[in-house]
């Protein structure tokens, strides 16, 4: 009897320990402390390489056919995870810190976020891609955003432009043409208002869409003349508040507001309602990033045919107009075991036919300076500017931290609402700028 009790007790202890051990293993596996896939970065069988990639949803869509093509050609497997850009930015930072980041990662340009190329490259998180042949085909608007200290640390998969989209029918009804100078823009707005249409949709409820105006006007009024302005600002030689170009940017924006050319109640209008108002013909124009054009087209029955685009003029000389461009970057995790394999995949993406395939699939501008015949004619009006090199990076990507932009987004709304002055806003931006890169 005693023996039986003892063995039962022992059996219970063993079961308890087994359950405890199992629970612990499950918990640790759930917490990520235990590798449960039983494989390594090379796929575990020693014959095939498995690359991991963590990108935003746009890149995932555009890269999928190219990845399939690459996998067929090389036998390499690419395991892609994707998330919305904001979610990705939050998670990527944690992943890099914990050593669980993918081999290929989507990173923001310049220093615009905690996971931007400049910030991560300075921390040694990105592999150096400077020796890759495709770096010779980086455009001037992209090169300053693609690395630090003259090194290239990221590959531009595509580029987006800030453009003014307009409703062709509304323009035709008001008998106006796309303006090429600032004075023409004011005249067109006046004619449109006379025709009973809101000249410019201004969905500024989210400051993100307000900032496009500063970057589009700043391309012509600031960076066209002074492409190295931010080098001087970082050196403390110049600041926002005393810079004539930046003051003129805000003066012109407020000129449109004071003339009543923007939507009424702009700070309460969400962006998609702004797009819908242009699609319905209630408003005539909308400033947006070219990546947003497919969404705009989806709101009109005729689709892309209903709209045209032009570069926002800021002076009375059409030859002055520049257009801001921003790349979507893919970089290689420096801590990856597959750096060379990842570089090989990027070299594949950099082939002209693949650059063209991505641009056409997504309706965006090619990431590299290659001869690409775009299937869509939507962006034709701004292609001559790109060919002539009349492009600049988005201003915020050149700033040393994301807080300067954040201040523009929020205090910019206050300026629009007449709660503060341009001088106050620019002083606040200077304060954030001077904090430098975190």
């Amino acid at each position: 009897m005693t023996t039986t009790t003892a063995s039962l007790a022992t059996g219970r202890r063993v079961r308890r320990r087994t359950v405890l051990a199992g629970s612990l293993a499950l918990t640790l596996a759930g917490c990520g402390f235990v590798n449960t896939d039983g494989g390594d970065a090379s796929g575990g069988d020693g014959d095939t390489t498995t690359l991991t990639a963590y990108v935003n949803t746009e890149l995932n869509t555009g890269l999928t056919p190219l990845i399939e093509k690459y996998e067929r050609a090389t036998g390499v497997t690419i395991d892609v995870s994707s998330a919305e850009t904001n979610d990705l930015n939050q998670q990527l930072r944690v992943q890099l810190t914990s050593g669980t980041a993918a081999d290929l990662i989507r990173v923001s340009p310049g220093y615009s976020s905690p996971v931007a190329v400049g910030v991560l490259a300075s921390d040694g998180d990105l592999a150096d891609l400077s020796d890759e042949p495709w770096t010779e085909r980086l455009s001037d608007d992209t090169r300053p955003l693609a690395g630090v200290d003259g090194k290239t640390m990221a590959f531009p998969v595509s580029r987006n432009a800030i453009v003014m989209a307009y409703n062709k029918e509304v323009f035709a009804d008001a008998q106006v043409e796309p303006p090429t100078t600032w004075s023409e823009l004011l005249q067109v707005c006046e004619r449109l208002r006379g025709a009973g249409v809101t000249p410019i949709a201004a969905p500024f409820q989210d400051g993100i869409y307000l900032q496009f105006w500063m970057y589009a006007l700043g391309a012509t009024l600031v960076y066209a003349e002074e492409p190295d302005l931010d080098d001087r600002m970082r050196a403390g030689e110049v600041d926002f508040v005393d810079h004539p170009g930046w003051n003129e940017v805000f003066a012109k924006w407020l000129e449109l507001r004071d003339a009543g050319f923007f939507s009424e109640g702009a700070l309460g209008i969400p962006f998609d309602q702004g797009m819908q108002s242009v699609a319905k013909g209630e408003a005539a124009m909308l400033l947006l990033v070219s990546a947003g054009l497919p969404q705009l087209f989806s709101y009109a029955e005729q689709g892309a045919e209903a709209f045209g685009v032009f570069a926002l003029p800021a002076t009375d000389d059409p030859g002055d107009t520049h257009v801001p461009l921003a790349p979507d970057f893919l970089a290689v995790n420096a801590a990856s075991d597959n750096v060379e394999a990842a570089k090989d995949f990027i070299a594949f993406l950099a082939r002209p036919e693949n650059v063209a395939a991505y641009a056409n699939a997504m309706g965006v501008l090619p990431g590299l300076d290659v001869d690409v015949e775009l299937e869509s004619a939507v962006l034709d009006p701004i292609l001559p500017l790109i060919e002539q090199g009349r492009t600049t990076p988005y201003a915020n990507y050149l700033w040393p931290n994301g807080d300067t932009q954040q201040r523009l987004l929020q205090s910019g709304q206050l300026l629009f609402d007449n709660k503060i002055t341009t001088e106050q806003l620019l002083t606040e931006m200077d304060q954030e700028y001077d904090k430098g890169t975190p």
Partner: protein
Amino acid sequence: MTVRLDRPAERVEAQELGRTLADRRGGTWYLFVVPALAFYALVVLYPTVAGAWYAFTDWTGRNVAPNFVGLANFAELFSSPPARTALWNTLVIAAATTVIQTVVGLALALALHSALVTRNLLRTVFFAPALLPPVVIGFLWRYTLTPAGPLNDALRELGLGGLAQNWLGDGDIALASVIGVIIWQHTGLTMVIYLAGLEGVPAEVLEAAAIDGASWWQRLRYVTIPLLIPATTVAMSLTLISGLKLFDQVFVMTGGGPGYATETLSVIMYKEAFVSGRYGYAAAIALVLTMIVFAFAFLQLRALRRFEVEA
């Protein structure tokens, strides 16, 4: 030698029994306690203490060994105008929702604690918004409150176009709009708490008061409300705490704007951590928010407990 003889027999018996049980277990009780305590320490205590520690550093989420910066993060929090605005907005939202939600919730509960035929339907209707996820509520009202949205359209249809506003886009009224949405969503929950409390009010006490000639108002003022203080304690504590921590609806409806008009501590904490990568500063904001929640909840609980009576 002194012998104490004043130990109650039950206590002696319990102590003896406890000793016997402990002896029978062979002193292995700690095997059951230690894993749970270790798990609690790992997933609750350590992150809490570590989070508090980061509030005194310049941690960016990337630097493995952040620098100790003393009270610099707290100094910035209390000196930065946007952060001060967020702190003020947080207190205004918490105070307004607590007071208005309690009063309206009580009124609804009193109205629906009756023989009204449609009372169950109305209870469901008023409680339904509390069941929806805050993000859904945020998106719903974000579009309802646009200048060309359904609310302004309805006002114009009713000939009240003069009352139409840029509800979320006008910095002077945006905070009030947000507060209105929070109250709309959660008043049903307060109503349900009060309905449960009203079930506990003895009918005979109310009848006795009525026989003694007390009016409806006097019965409410001197009988019902004092007996509802426990329900009030629960309702006000929950509302105050959720008001202080408010994030989802603000983030979805306004993102803290226009400008900084609807910024709350939770929203700037999110932005500082995940947008700017200033985790140390965000931890300081979180620590201050935690202290505020503790302090207000404790004070409110103590104050309300004083008024509690037994039926």
